[in-house]
């Protein structure tokens, strides 16, 4: 049977805010019938306060798609647009008491619909990065182009690295063969272009990677990959690294009149305090995402940065 939490079941059987909204301020459509799920999110926004006063949805999709859509509306009503935009798909899943790994894409759809609806409200074109090549990882909506870019930009050579950077393969794992294919293809191209040492490239015919040669420093991987290949960090080392990374970012934030301080680290949750221009501004989510990316890069581990 479906391993849905009580809350998912409740939001599926008795969805809140389902239906059409007349005179919506913004409408976000994502998905398509051919993909198996599609969501239309309608929001009403108070033009003075920027607060989302009402939200409705229509969903074509499975139980968790309907529940995630409904959860999204509950989460955003009463929030300002800026606040709403800091929500991640994980927040939707958390609100529902978790989603089965292979259903996480349903929460991603909610996350995207909100962005599409806000863009529509602001009269902007909403662009997403779903359009390059075939969808490889369905759980996280990662397509070939996204994997290729992550591999190229960061010199990735293993499946685990690709998962850390893109999430692809981090859930049901049915897409692993596909990811390995893209990785092998991209690495091979990088070798030809002289961007990667052939001995470092991902080799699909090797069951086990041989022990790495000492780094020559010539490979573009030498610096960036370091954290990933490091031995497991102690908690203290982890916190130090996080601290260092945040310290390194502060000068940039201060330039923009903002600031960010480390408050606490709980497992993979990094709690930070944003201040100054970072608060409430549209850039808050950008800042959080930037800090998060930087930390993941430094530690080579998945992390979530949460503003408190």
């Amino acid at each position, binding site marked *: *049977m*479906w391993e849905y939490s009580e809350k998912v079941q409740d939001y*599926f*059987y008795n*969805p809140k805010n*389902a*239906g059409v909204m007349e005179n919506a301020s913004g409408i*976000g*459509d*994502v*998905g*398509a*019938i*051919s*993909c*198996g*799920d*599609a*969501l*239309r999110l309608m929001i009403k926004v108070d033009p003075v306060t920027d607060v989302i006063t009402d939200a409705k949805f*229509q*969903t*074509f*999709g*499975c*139980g968790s*798609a*309907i529940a995630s859509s409904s959860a999204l509306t509950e989460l955003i009503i009463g929030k300002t647009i800026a606040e709403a935009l800091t929500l991640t798909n994980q927040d939707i899943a958390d609100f529902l008491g978790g989603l089965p790994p*292979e*259903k996480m*894409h349903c929460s991603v759809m909610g996350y995207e619909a909100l962005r*599409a609806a806000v863009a529509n409200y602001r009269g902007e074109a*909403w*662009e*997403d990065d*779903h*359009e390059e090549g075939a969808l490889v990882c*369905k*759980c996280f909506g990662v397509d070939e182009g996204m994997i290729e870019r992550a591999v190229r930009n960061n010199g990735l050579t293993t499946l685990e690295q690709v998962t850390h950077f893109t999430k692809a393969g981090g859930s*049901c794992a*049915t897409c692993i063969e596909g990811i390995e294919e893209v990785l092998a293809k991209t690495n091979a191209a990088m070798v030809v272009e002289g961007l990667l040492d052939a001995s470092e490239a991902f080799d699909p015919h090797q069951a086990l990677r041989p022990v790495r040669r000492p780094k020559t420093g010539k490979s573009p991987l030498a610096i960036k990959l370091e954290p990933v290949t490091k031995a497991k960090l102690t908690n203290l080392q982890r916190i130090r690294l996080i601290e260092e990374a945040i310290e390194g970012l502060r000068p940039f934030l201060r330039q923009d009149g903002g600031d960010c301080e480390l408050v606490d680290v709980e497992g993979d949750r990094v709690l930070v305090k944003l201040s100054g221009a970072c608060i409430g501004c549209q850039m808050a989510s950008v800042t959080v995402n930037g800090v998060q990316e930087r930390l993941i890069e430094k530690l080579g581990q998945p992390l979530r940065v949460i503003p408190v």
Partner: protein
Amino acid sequence: MRPVYLDNNATTRVDPAAVAAMLPFFTEQFGNASSMHAFGASVGGALKTARRQLQELLGAEHDHEIIYTSGGTESDNTAILSALETQGGRTEVITSVVEHPAILALCDWLEKHKSVTIHRIPVDAKGRLDVEAYRKALGPKTAIASIMWANNETGTLFPVERLAEMAHEAGALFHTDAVQAVGKLPIDLKSTEIDMLSLSGHKLHGPKGIGALYVRKGVRLRPLIRGGHQERGRRAGTENAPAIIGLGKAAELALAHMSDEQTRVKALRDRLEQGLLQRIGSSFVTGDSDHRLPNTANVAFEFIEGEAILLLLNRAGIAASSGSACTSGSLEPSHVLRAMKVPYTAAHGAIRFSFSRENGDEDVDRVLEVMPGIIANLRSLSPFWKDKGAAKAAPNAAFNPTYA
């Protein structure tokens, strides 16, 4: 309220009589049939009886044409891999686009890693095989053609007897995945040219994890699993005696109920199907209504998604299954319905109801009672459905996603 189980193509309840036949072989008669003592001997006798029971259901000429395996999947894999080895110099396999993954995933792998050429024969809108394409694909390089007897999702039947003859004209072996057909249709293998046939115990009220591969006498076989000499060296490993005995009993019962399956069960299926189409608009039957299993109905409800329907059915105590593979974590609709070019708008909302001899009229009544409400409820949530189907003409015109 008694739950309504209409997912018998997925698996069936083990018949209590089969369970009763199995039980002594877990406890009192636990011997190994190969042993040289009395413990083994009585088991050996029971296995012989079980083999005869299955032989009779299949209409096989000899009982040693049956090789017990762990199920349909193993039988399918054994048949194809063996043919590629025994048919020297022949490196092509013919199959259909609507096979079970037990065949398709193996073929994909063979194509990718073993340089085997795979011909996947298409089907038409009713799921019928393109026999002309099949004929054209057959040739001096064909090692084996493997076409299912009945499709698990729509119940559509394939003309396997004729396809076997055609394969032989080209010197190829013919295998059929009859996992869904055995027990539901009268079968008489000795009067056909079929070389190999796969079946699975749990689809005919027998236990799970047991199945068989029928291999016509004279057809060479290379074992998939090597070891001891069980099954005449064609499938090593100590016999799963209780399961084989349970499958034997299940085969006997299936034969005894064959006419019930063809008449009463079929009538239940037809009444459900007609009733659903009458009560619910924008719905239609998929598959070849004139040539299909008596127990299977596959009905597509447009503009809604299958898993959501199943969840609501489940809450009403009804078990069915979905043509949408969403339930298995993938968002692609069933490869079978896509191969039949059923539009996405409907393929995602296809529901399979599969009956067995254990179903009755009250089961049909229950589904007919709750289904219209479930469909209406989900359609009211769907962005592709405007009041009373108004969006039907151009579902995508109204819904305008930023990406697709």
